[in-house]
């Protein structure tokens, strides 16, 4: 029995449908208008070099947690992923659940920033942002939520500035960089990072994009555009697709020296597990983290496999460690409806119980 149940005339019909959707969709595509970057109103509270610290406007009707929450995003891609559209905004959802949300936008480093080190980012930029917030709220400690690479930075920061952190939330954060299913890690093991950085200075966003798209090249560079044809006629869905598309390709360059240390110390030498990492003049030790820790990861994460995040368990000095596993992917954990219903409220109530 043949497994193919389509005749030439059916294929013709399918082609016709495809062509018609495409033809009608051009109009919507051309009239999609400006694609916004983030939807929740916010105010700039601090600026330094390319960095901007924002505070998001909370709804008046909600009672706010007295301890503000600082979101530390990765240096890869842009942080508006967390606020991508009104009904899929992690930030808006956190605000609605009573969190007072701040976010660091790293901006777009250029060649003049190539000498910025992890020390500059962690003990410099992050620390000054934390101090600004502490001062504004007259508090000794604040809450921190680190995302992906920003989660690794937050772990480093908390281990060196525990006196300034009330609670730490890590989301899709790599801790064990050498789990067997970590494709990115496998790929960088034979790369001469010194040569790469010495040659390029900053690491171009385009190169990072290539790496991420190469993780699933057929789905991410081909199949998804067929799916796009299916949503072309729905203006709302099309706009959502375009927002995501913009975000994916909105990839800032990475400061060369920071990239050098991050890849060498963490991806190649697995520094959180193996030790021996120094950030500036300080030695990194996760055991210095004594505040409550909530570790959130995604079960179908192809960038940061769940085991890479789970490795945090037992490695900090905290007596209050909680894990939250989400049945979705690395991006879905921010933008899916399920994540809005499950993850953000859970983070918020965890923080409320401890602030």
């Amino acid at each position, binding site marked *: 029995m*043949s*497994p*193919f*149940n*389509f005749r*030439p*005339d*059916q*294929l*013709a019909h*399918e*082609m*016709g449908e*495809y*062509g*018609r959707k*495409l*033809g*009608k969709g*051009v*109009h919507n*595509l*051309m009239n999609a208008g400006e694609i916004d970057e983030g939807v929740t109103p916010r105010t700039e509270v601090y600026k330094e070099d390319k960095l901007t610290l924002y505070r998001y406007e909370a709804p008046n009707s909600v009672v706010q947690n007295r301890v503000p929450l600082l979101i530390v995003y990765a240096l890869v891609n842009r942080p508006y992923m967390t606020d991508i559209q009104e009904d899929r905004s992690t930030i808006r959802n956190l605000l609605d659940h009573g969190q007072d949300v701040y976010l660091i936008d790293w901006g777009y480093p250029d*060649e*003049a920033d*190539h*000498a910025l080190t992890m020390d*500059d980012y962690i003990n*410099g930029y992050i620390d000054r942002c934390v101090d600004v917030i502490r001062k504004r709220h007259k508090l000794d400690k604040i809450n921190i939520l680190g995302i992906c690479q920003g989660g690794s930075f937050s772990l480093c920061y908390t281990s060196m500035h525990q006196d300034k952190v009330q609670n730490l939330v890590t989301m899709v954060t790599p801790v064990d960089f050498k789990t067997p*299913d970590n*494709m990115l890690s*496998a*790929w960088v*093991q*034979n*790369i*001469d990072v010194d*040569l*790469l950085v010495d*040659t*390029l*200075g900053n690491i*171009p966003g*385009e*190169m990072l*994009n*290539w*790496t991420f*798209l*190469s993780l*699933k*090249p*057929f789905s991410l*560079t*081909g*199949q998804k*555009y*067929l799916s*796009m*044809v299916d949503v072309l006629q729905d203006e709302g869905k099309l706009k959502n697709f375009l927002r995501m598309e913009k975000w994916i390709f909105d990839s800032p360059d990475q400061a060369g020296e920071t990239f050098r240390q991050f890849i060498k110390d963490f991806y190649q030498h697995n520094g959180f597990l193996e030790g021996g990492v120094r950030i500036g003049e300080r030695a990194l030790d996760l055991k210095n983290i004594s505040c409550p820790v909530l570790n959130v990861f995604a079960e179908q994460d192809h960038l940061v496999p769940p085991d890479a995040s789970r490795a945090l368990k037992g490695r900090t000095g905290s007596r209050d460690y909680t894990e939250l596993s989400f049945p979705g992917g690395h991006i879905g954990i921010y933008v899916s409806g399920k994540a809005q219903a499950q993850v953000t409220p859970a983070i918020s109530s965890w923080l409320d119980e401890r602030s």
Partner: protein
Amino acid sequence: MSETPFWNDDWMRVQQQYWEQWGEMSRKAMGMEQPARTPWENAMEHWWQAISPATDKATRGFMEKMMNQGKMFFRLGDELSKNMQNTKDWGDALNKTFEKMQDSFAAAAEQSSEVGEKGFSQLMGFWEGPMEAWRKAAGQLPMSSDFAGTPKLFEQLLGTPGLGYTREDEESYKELAQAWLHYQHALMSYNHFFADVGTASLRCMQGKIGELVKDGGKIESGRALYDTWVAACEEVYAEHTMTPEYSKVHGELVNALMAFKKKWRELQDNRLGMLGLPTTREVRTLQTRLQESRRELRALRSEMELLKDQVAELRTPQASEAPPAKPKAVTKKVAKKKVARKKAAAKQ
């Protein structure tokens, strides 16, 4: 059917005509020469050429991506349908479809050894993806396009006479040429790796369809066929790219390109230096020193802030809490100590 400025039913009629013609063709004897592109693709191309000038750059980019993928899955369905017309054995039809594709992979591997990068671009669209992405990424990096595909310049460099003052230059150019050759070898290995993986993905596709038959399932559309193909490719790709062999091939590709670029940049720097212009090396040194100074300045500033705060803290409680007599006592003690020190110094 409603019409938009970008769509009308005439286009549908063109497609209808195509399928009528195709049906006619399929009834004729085997062995007829097939057009390189299907009439459906031609119709699509004509339509797109007519409207694309009216579209903006972003729209054009998206449309081209969607059209390319559309062509891909219809070509797959088209080829299979044709083969299904000639046999009742689905396995045979599938094999014939993939044999044609396998020929493309083999040809690509052969070509890649001859012309390097260009060989892969002629590979059937699908497995071109990872390589195309690499080409784009590499092209975005500074300087790569200056050298890519310029054998003439390459020959000129190797032919540079090595006499007198140019001896050092010649050495540098030879090193550059060697770096370029090394990159070409690395690229070839990378291409070969993917050509092999492409073949494996065809086997995986056949396996998936075989499983479907066992379970009594069916592929009901061209799109479902395409999706199965994508799933097979992703599965095989993931399997192969997690191996130490791929890690090595990938690492060598990146390292070889970087070594070439670094050498190229050094040569550029030498030329700039001779002209008295700032070089990349110098600018980087300045940037590093500047960042060090900024770091020190920041540290001093925060230390200053800390000291200011401490001074302010010290002043506030002393003014309100300390009894007035105590400072005098301290002053006296200090005065006594000073006198004692003076006496001791006088004795010495």
